[in-house]
Structure formats: structure tokens, C-alpha cells
């Protein structure tokens, strides 16, 4: 056996973990750089030195004001929601054992859209739009869970199908509201649907939930590895699968609901970031969950910064940019990893 260990010593778990730890450290570095870029880029460019002064100093001035009150909340909101969506997507993919799952697969974004657009249609203030989105998201979650749970044997397929049907129903309701809405409100509705971080003035709850959510998921990461390999195997190895699924379902839904409430239903991050990270560092959830969280934050923060700067003063919906960045990167990585 010593021979066997020696033969694979350089390519065993130790080396895998060292690579993954390096990838995590690299992601932290990239996150800091993207943050700096996001805070300094815009109609009023700011140098890194001025940036540090504005963030740490107390004196006023327009520059500090823009950074502290406009760019910082927006960058934090984009980072937090990107992280929330990527973490929720990684969790849903394990819960449903389906690589095509994303945070919205169980109808959460559909429910949030119905709630938010209903509030916009009613002419509600922005606080009520957020509330509508949150209530709609949780409502869809409970509806899907209740329906799929009906006979007590909620298989992944049943859950998935129920989610898809509820999402389709929500899609129809959204289309109905768009066609009934007065001209002046349609643009706001479309922006909400495509995802938009410009209105995010209170990003700190999302960031706090991101930290709490990751901390809540990590203790179960090894159990999630087993769940990804199959329910019977996981149970035979001592995993309390029912409790774990409930936790993942509830946590994933909450993360998604808060992200959708903060920046709208930004597509793509939750589906593609976990896969990107998986291609890079493998599928051990203990590494995948933190890495996907960081990568999702980085991607959305970068996309949002680009969305407000590349064709300034026009602001693009960030959801369009996440797809435009994500699709080619993903296809490139997929083509580079032939099976």
C-alpha cells in the first residue's frame, strides 16, 4: 500500500486541496480588484489613492459623496446578490441532482416578478416593490414545496416539474401585467425583469445574509457531497437526508428571494457560476460553495460596473451583460474540457 500512496502522492487529495485553496485566494484577490474598479470607474473617474481617502476619511466633497453613497452601495449590492445567486444555484443543483438547475428553477423568480410587477402596476413606492418581490418569491417557494410534497415522497423530478409549471404560470401572469400596464410603467417593469442594481440603496442586508447563508451551508458541505451522489448512498452513510434537503431548500429559497428583491431577477449567474467553478476546482462542496459565492459576486459586480460605464450615460440592464460575459466564457471552458 505504501507503494500505492507514493505513486499517487503528488496527485492525491492533498495536491487537489492545495490547488483549490490557491484558487480561493486568487478569487479573493480578484474580488478586491473588481471592487476597486467598480468604485473608481464612472462618469467621474477616481484614482486609487483618492478612493482610499474617500472610503476612510470623514470629510465631505462630491467625490467622497458619490463613492460612499452611490457607488459603494451599488457595488456591494451587486457583489452580495451575485454571491447569493451563485450559492443558491450550487445548492439547488445538488438538491435536485440536476446540472440544469438554477436558483429560479423552482419558480422563485417568477413569483418575485409577479409580486414586484404587481406593485409597480399599482404604482407603489420602491419599498413596496421590494416587499412585493419578497412576498411573491416566498409564496412561490411555499406553493412549489406544498404541491410537490403532497404525497410525502417528494422526488427530485416531482419537485422540478412542479417548479417549472409554477414558473410557467408566473410567466403568463407577468406577460398579462406587461400587456395591461400603462406605457410609462413598462420600461421600469422590463428593467426589473432583466435585473438592475441601480436602485439598490440598502445592500447591507443582502451582504449579511450572504455571510450567514454561507456559514450555514458549509457545515453540511460534506453531506451535500454525498447527497450529490444519490439519496440511498447518502442515507446509508448516516446523512439525515430529509433534514438536509429541507435545509437546502429553505436556505436556497431565502438567498434567492433576497437577491431577487435587491437587484431583480438577474439571470445566468446561478446556473453558470457553479459550473464554471466546478470545471476549475472540482465538485467538492466544501470548496465549491465558498468559491462559487466569491465568483458569483465578482461576476455580477464586474458586470454591473460595465453596465453603467461601457455606453455611459446609458445604463444597460446588468442581466444582459451577465449573459453576454458568461455565455462565451462558459462555452470556452466547456470546449477546453473534453470528456
Amino acid at each position, binding site marked *: *500500500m505504501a507503494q*500505492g500512496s507514493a505513486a*499517487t502522492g503528488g496527485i492525491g*487529495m492533498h495536491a487537489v486541496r492545495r490547488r483549490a485553496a490557491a484558487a480561493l485566494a486568487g478569487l479573493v484577490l480578484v474580488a478586491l480588484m473588481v471592487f476597486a474598479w467598480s468604485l473608481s470607474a464612472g462618469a467621474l473617474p477616481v484614482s486609487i489613492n483618492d478612493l482610499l481617502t474617500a472610503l476612510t476619511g470623514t470629510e465631505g466633497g462630491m467625490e467622497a459623496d458619490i463613492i460612499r453613497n452611490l457607488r459603494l452601495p451599488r457595488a456591494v449590492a451587486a457583489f452580495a446578490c451575485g454571491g447569493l445567486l451563485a450559492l443558491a444555484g450550487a445548492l439547488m443543483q445538488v438538491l435536485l441532482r440536476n446540472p440544469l438547475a438554477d436558483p429560479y428553477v423552482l419558480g422563485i423568480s417568477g413569483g418575485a416578478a409577479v409580486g414586484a410587477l404587481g406593485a409597480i402596476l399599482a404604482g407603489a413606492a420602491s419599498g413596496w416593490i421590494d416587499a412585493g418581490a419578497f412576498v411573491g418569491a416566498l409564496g412561490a417557494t411555499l406553493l412549489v414545496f406544498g404541491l410537490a410534497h403532497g404525497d410525502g415522497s417528494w422526488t427530485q423530478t416531482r419537485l422540478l416539474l412542479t417548479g417549472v409549471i409554477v414558473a410557467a404560470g408566473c410567466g403568463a401572469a407577468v406577460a398579462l401585467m406587461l400587456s395591461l400596464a400603462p406605457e410609462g410603467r413598462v420600461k421600469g417593469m422590463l428593467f426589473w425583469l432583466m435585473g438592475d442594481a441601480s436602485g439598490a440603496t440598502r445592500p447591507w442586508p443582502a451582504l449579511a445574509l450572504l455571510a450567514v447563508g454561507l456559514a450555514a451551508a458549509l*457545515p453540511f458541505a460534506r453531506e451535500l457531497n454525498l447527497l450529490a451522489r444519490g439519496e440511498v448512498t447518502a442515507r*446509508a452513510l448516516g446523512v439525515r437526508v430529509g433534514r438536509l434537503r429541507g435545509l437546502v431548500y429553505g436556505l436556497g429559497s431565502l438567498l434567492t428571494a433576497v437577491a431577487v428583491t435587491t437587484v431583480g431577477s438577474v439571470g445566468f449567474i446561478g446556473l453558470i457560476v457553479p459550473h464554471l467553478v466546478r470545471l476549475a476546482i472540482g465538485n467538492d462542496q466544501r470548496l465549491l460553495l465558498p468559491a462559487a459565492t466569491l465568483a458569483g459576486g465578482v461576476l455580477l459586480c464586474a458586470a454591473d460596473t460595465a453596465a453603467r460605464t461601457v455606453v455611459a450615460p446609458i445604463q444597460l440592464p446588468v442581466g444582459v451583460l451577465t449573459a453576454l460575459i458568461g455565455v462565451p466564457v462558459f462555452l470556452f471552458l466547456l470546449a477546453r474540457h473534453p*470528456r
Partner: protein
Amino acid sequence: MKMDARPPVLAAERLTVQVGRRDVCRELDFTLQAGDTLVILGRNGAGKTTLLHTLAGLRDAARGAVLLSGQPYAAWPRGHEACLRGLLAQSQPDFFSATVLETALVGRHPYLGRWDWEGPDDEAIALAALAQMGLESLATRQVPTLSGGERQRLSIAALLVQQPRLYLLDEPLAHLDLHHQVAVLDHFRSLAASGAGVAMVLHDINLTARYASHVLLLDGEGGHVIGPAAEVLTTARLSAAFGHPLRAIADGEHTLFVPA
């Protein structure tokens, strides 16, 4: 009777298992001692997997009790049962990639605390199990690149890594070629000889005759016959249980059962 102070590895007491309203077995009694190999035979849909999962503590019995090393599953501290009994489930499709070594290491899960990572000792155990299944050269390969038979041997290796006292195997020979069928059964025979208990679902009557110490024959309607292999494996009983006439051909040393 062997003199073993320890309680039997597995025991069923007046065990009735049902799927919906249909009985898989009624009032099943047996004890599996260390060293025993019990093979469960029965036609498709007789409930062999359901019974095996019940014996593994993954499913509640309709009536009666299952005792693992003398205690019901519920009496063991949570998670400890996974150190005592291992289950080889029927293979399920993999949706996510992992390396062969990572997959074998899942068998260490019951021994690790919530925040523990697999250490060098765990890795040595996993590599040893891979070697026993002839997979040591594939340790760094991605599972989706393996053949069906290699995956089955990997599942068995992961079970060996778990190092339980009771092995419950659901069709362990699925996808295996003749050589590996015999090698796998030989391996479990040697594990039984060194103090483990083995219960498995098989479809091959002749391999059953060669490796089983005891046989449980399910008739698919709730009835069963259980006993020493030589007593249960008769053409009359097998023909009735499988709903197909069988003949026995003996050459003095072995008896082979063939479809008539």
C-alpha cells in the same frame, strides 16, 4: 455453533415488510452471525431491494424488528450505525464529476467529524480498497470516464472503505465480467471469514450455491423460505419461486441449476 460472545451481526424478528399493501415477506426470522453469507433470491419485483433497505435501517418495517449487532437501529447513537453496516445500493447515474479517489473517500464519512477533512490515513484506506478492486491505476480519473463495470467496482471500493461489520449488497455483480464476479464474491467471502456478516441480493443461482452459507428465497407473494443454502436450493423450490422450471445437473462435486 460458533462460540462468539458478540451478538449476531444482524437479526430479524417476526419481520413483516410491505410495499404499499403488498407483503414482501411475513414473519421473517433469522440471525446472521459473523462469518455467514446470506443470499436473497427472488423474481423481479419480489421486493428484494425493499427488504435489503429495511435490513439497512433505511425503511420502516410494517411489523417486527431488525437488530443490528443486537440493537434496533433507533437505539444506536445517530451516525454510528454507518460505522457498523454498509449498503451497496443499485447504481445510480452520476450527474456531477468527481475523481475515483474522491468517490472512494466518501466511505470515510461516518468516521469524520463535521469539520474534519480526510487525512492521509483515510487516503491510505481508500487507496487500499481501490487496489483490492483493481482500480489503483485509475485513482485520478474522472468517474464519468469509467466503464459500467469499473464504476460498479468503485462503488464496492467505497463500501470497503466504510469498513462496516455488516455488508448489505444489492446486486453486487451488476455490470461485472465473469472474472470480476468471482473476484468480488471471493473478496466478500474472505471478509466474512475474518468476522463480517454479508447479506446480498443476487440473480445467479449457481454463484449463490457456490458462495452462500444461507439462502432466503422470496416467492413474491409474501411467502419465504430461509435456511442453509443446500436445504433451500432445490429445483422444486427454485422453480416455484421463479415461475420457471429448473433442472439440476450434478457432476459429483457441484450442482448446477439450468432452466429446463
